[in-house]
């Protein structure tokens, strides 16, 4: 034990954050006046050159937001948020005249993304992936747009979709996550600045992975993106989002909304690798990640699959959910949530079974290290008419530190006797025997922890698109550095 203790101390003496995305890009920006008011909302709408209906929609949300209470049910120690102490819009100056091609993008931005390992290029490493690059409040570039449009796939910043495809946006925006769903989603509805819009037409299998990379750069600025993906009959798309932010002492707010809609026989596979700055080892700084993600399987035989690897953020509050409306529709939720240092995560899913023979599957792997708190919170609800519904939930927690917490709070509600629901949960300590076995074969203690935890998460990680699975495994390992003991 003595040797282990020593390792723990040594590692703890090192700076906890080996957060390699913590740099700041020095770039001239244009911001909205600080604070939140109707004027802020109007400012954003004007900046985006939005039609009147969009402004009205935002204002309605803003007024509703003023009346809503903060959601309190998460197992989170949450400080009071001063909504007036933040900027709600920040854009690189160079984006004023939107660059017409990738060659015109500000070199400083190009360098930033190069450094983040996702160059703004339509070749090399990311040849099979189209990327929308969102920098603070604006999309700065989107690759492969033309190639996608050739097969009818719309992939563009949502601010452009409002201009170019108003009917689609009007029809679907807010249809899955209504403005008043919760306070964070409501705030997003009022002040969202960018995000991605995807429309896959009937019968089209999207020829490449779509991806959005979110970067918060500016100090004291919140990011409020909104993503809307519509998969029409018989179509398929796989979409991935990644997120990073600089290392700062102040907390920053990220309140996103994601809405997914699948028609008959369509499928959306939505993956997230969330690596926002988690704060330092004393809990200073870090992103407050308040995200509302929900999909509706509108059509029969449709499918929505959420995969998330959550390693970042000071506080994560997020429940990607599926409303299984179409008969035979399928919802899946695969999650790895790792908390270390003083991080807090309260995450899980909701599977609402409405249609007949709907199926859902939940695999959640929580890993708590350091002084963190990690909660799985989930709901499986079977409505009276959801004949033949089926759910399987496996929810495992692994403890890698003596002062962390792992909590499991599932709600299981069935109103249909033919529904079959199975929920299993386990919590245990990382096995000393496994660690010793690895070490006896020459693997260092820290690598052994990484290996064992990656094994523990395998069922989830293998759901990620190939291009990102390796990166995610690395991330799992890095996130646990300094936690062995």
């Amino acid at each position, binding site marked *: 034990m003595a040797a282990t203790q020593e390792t723990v101390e040594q590692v703890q003496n090192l700076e906890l954050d080996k957060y390699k995305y913590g740099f700041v890009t020095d770039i001239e920006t244009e911001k909205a006046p600080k604070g939140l008011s109707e004027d802020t909302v109007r400012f954003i709408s004007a900046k985006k050159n939005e039609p009147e209906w969009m402004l009205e929609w935002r204002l309605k949300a803003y007024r509703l937001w003023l009346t809503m209470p903060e959601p309190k049910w998460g197992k989170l120690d949450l400080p009071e948020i001063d909504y007036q102490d933040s900027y709600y819009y920040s854009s690189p100056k160079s984006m004023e005249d939107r660059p017409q091609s990738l060659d015109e993008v500000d070199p400083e931005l190009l360098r930033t993304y190069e450094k983040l390992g996702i160059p703004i290029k339509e070749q090399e490493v990311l040849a099979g992936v189209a990327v929308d690059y969102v920098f603070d409040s604006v999309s700065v570039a989107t690759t492969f747009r033309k190639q996608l449009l050739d097969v009818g796939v719309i992939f563009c910043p949502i601010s452009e979709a409002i201009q170019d495809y108003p009917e689609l946006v009007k029809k679907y925006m807010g249809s899955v996550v209504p403005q008043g769903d919760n306070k964070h989603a409501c705030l997003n509805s009022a002040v969202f600045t960018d995000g991605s819009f995807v429309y896959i037409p009937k019968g089209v299998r999207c020829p490449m992975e779509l991806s959005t990379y979110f970067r918060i750069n500016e100090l004291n600025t919140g990011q409020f993106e909104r993503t809307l993906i519509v998969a029409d009959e018989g179509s398929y798309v796989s979409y991935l989002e990644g997120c990073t932010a600089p290392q700062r002492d102040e907390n920053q707010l990220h309140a996103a909304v994601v809405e997914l809609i699948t028609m008959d026989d369509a499928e959306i596979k939505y993956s997230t690798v969330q690596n926002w700055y988690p704060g330092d080892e004393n809990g200073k700084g870090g992103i407050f990640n308040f995200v509302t993600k929900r999909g509706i399987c509108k059509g029969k035989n449709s499918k929505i699959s959420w995969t998330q690897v959550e390693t970042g953020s000071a506080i994560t509050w997020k429940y990607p959910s599926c409303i299984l409306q179409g008969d035979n529709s399928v919802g899946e939720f695969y999650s790895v949530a790792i908390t270390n240092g003083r991080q807090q995560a309260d995450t899980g899913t909701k599977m609402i079974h409405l249609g007949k023979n709907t199926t859902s599957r939940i695999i959640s792997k929580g890993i708590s290290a350091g002084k963190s708190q990690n909660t799985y919170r989930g709901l499986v609800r079977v409505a*009276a008419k959801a004949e033949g519904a089926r759910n399987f939930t496996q929810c495992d927690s692994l403890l*890698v530190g003596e002062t962390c*917490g792992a909590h499991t709070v599932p709600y299981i509600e*069935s109103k*249909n*006797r033919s529904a*079959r*629901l199975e929920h299993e949960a*386990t*919590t245990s300590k990382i096995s000393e025997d496994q660690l010793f076995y690895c070490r006896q074969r020459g693997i260092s203690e820290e690598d052994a922890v990484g290996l064992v935890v990656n094994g523990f998460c395998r069922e989830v990680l293998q759901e990620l698109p190939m291009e990102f699975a390796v990166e995610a495994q690395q991330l799992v390992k890095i996130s646990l550095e300094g936690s062995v003991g």
Partner: protein
Amino acid sequence: MVTLASDKEAFIAQYDQSKGNLPGSDIAWLSELRAKNIALFEEVGLPTAKTELWKFTNLNPLKKQSFSAPSAQEQIFANSNELPRQLPRLLEINASHRLVFIDGHYSEDLSDKNLPAGVTLHNLSSAIKAGAADLKVALSSRAREEEQPLVALNTALMSDGYVLEIAKNTSVDCPIEILHLGGGKAEISYHNRNVISVGFGSKATIIEHVTDRSDHVYFSNSATEISVSENATLHHYRVQASNRAAFLYSSTEVVADKGATYDNFLLNTGARLSRTETNVSLNGENSSCHLNASYMGTDDQHCDITTRVDHKTPHTTCDEVIKGVLGGKARGVFQGKIIVHEQAQKTVGNQSHRAMLLSDRAEVDAKPELEIFADDVICSHGCTSGQIDKEQLFYLRSRGLTSEQAQALLVNAFLADAVEAVQNEDLKDLLLTKIVNWLEQNPN
């Protein structure tokens, strides 16, 4: 006797009216305790579905009823000869020690008083009068009183109950049976408070039988404080078989010392609405508890089983097996929380809740919760909901059983699982019989 609607104010009015006549009204600490608790109840009110702990159980049907306290006359009735001598009895044998409560009141006449050496029993008012030691502590020891407004109401209004003390190193071989017979009059409510303490190294079995003699609506709000001392074992079994108009709330708070075992089983077939809360605090190393239950519901019955186990020291163990079968429009609720506190290393906690829905309109809601703050633990919970396995049903029918027989056999086997841990063989047989009988009477 004034009849009041049973919203918050009605209970407060009842308190104001009766406080001078409640047991121990001349004892300062008790009056203060009652006053403090009615104030707490006034502040919190009756639980609503907005309270997380009451998310699945709505007390509106209770609130729509009016209840009064049983009058002094009715208390006398409890001791009269008008009651059938043939009271329901769980265990046939005369060997069981028996206490009888009629509509919430202890009946000396009907109870068997030949308690073995080392066992002391008082009813609440005589215990208060006798100034029983530790009673004050026991009655004011609830850890989370603001979460339990009905217990606060009980403390304010408690009028009877039993105080059972088992001296140290006493092995009570014969079970102590406690009959709570309700239904003597319509629309009465009573608030019984019980205290059980099992001394160092002692062993006892308590069997509580909650039932009634009519279809009257009544509300039994009971609370029990149990302490199981070092190396002691308490088997605490409860059969709740009330009529389908009754409201039952029962809250039991258990503290287990070092090496102590609290073994609990509940068979619930009764009541329009029942909520049975059991909170166990494993305070001493190597203490353990079993919280097992089988529940059955039909028509518009609502059955809520809520448990909470606090592991506070290292090497503590809990096991929970809960099985439920629901027909008609019945609703079953299971909430089970296992909390492993920071210092409680080497905890083992396992919980399983399985429900079977027999009808299209039945509903089950479950919230099994793990809250873990220690790292060296092994905890799990499992939760399922479904209907009878059609393959098994077909298999049995192919072997010649009728559909009804096959269904009864499977449901029976499903429920019997939770009964397995019951230590008393006579009682186990009786519980299994009760399950079979219920299935016959409620074919669904």
